[in-house]
């Protein structure tokens, strides 16, 4: 019940295209859903996060869509750039668990020039 399932495992997009990564969860206690970007040899960097009281959050080219009834959330990267090539992790946490993050398995995004 603690799992967060992420898909696809890898994604190749042309420059300027839209990258979409999906995550699903089962634990209804989760109430915070961040996305992290990780480059090789670096730690994950917080990109954007959403709480379940809203269905969408946008920051620049990055948008989170959240469907509480389906227990799914997704990251959309608009106008994808080669510099966006990295591994993306969705995560979730619950207020009653000291906010420990449960991560998805990651999506390796490659944006072709």
């Amino acid at each position, binding site marked *: 019940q603690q799992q967060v399932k992420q898909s696809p495992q890898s994604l190749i997009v042309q420059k300027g295209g839209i990258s979409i990564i999906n995550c699903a969860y089962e634990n209804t206690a989760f109430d915070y859903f961040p996305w992290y970007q990780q480059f090789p040899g670096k730690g994950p960097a917080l990109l954007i996060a959403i709480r379940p009281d809203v269905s969408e959050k946008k920051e620049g080219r990055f948008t989170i869509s959240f469907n509480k009834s389906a227990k799914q959330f997704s990251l959309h990267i608009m106008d994808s750039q080669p510099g966006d090539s990295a591994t993306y992790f969705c995560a979730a*946490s619950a207020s009653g*668990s000291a906010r*420990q*993050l449960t991560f998805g398995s990651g999506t390796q995004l490659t944006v072709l020039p």
Partner: protein
Amino acid sequence: DAGVTQSPTHLIKTRGQQVTLRCSPKSGHDTVSWYQQALGQGPQFIFQYYEEEERQRGNFPDRFSGHQFPNYSSELNVNALLLGDSALYLCASSFDGEAFFGQGTRLTVV
């Protein structure tokens, strides 16, 4: 403002040895969590420290222990190292739920 800093960056240890990893949290952050990230996988929660006490623990054996100091910095100790402990060890500091990660310590056990 320095972010989360971890030391050392890389470390090679022999099976059976003990290792200590260190973390300095982001300024103003009072909570430190440790994660283990195996190659090609998402980070796995080890434990979290708040007010110098272990507040939450993930599914890791007692060989993994930690400490938090009054200045909120933290250490992760791993005893009796196994080959399977080879991973990137990440420290995250947080305040009000938002977690920021350091660059990690790459531990290789040979």
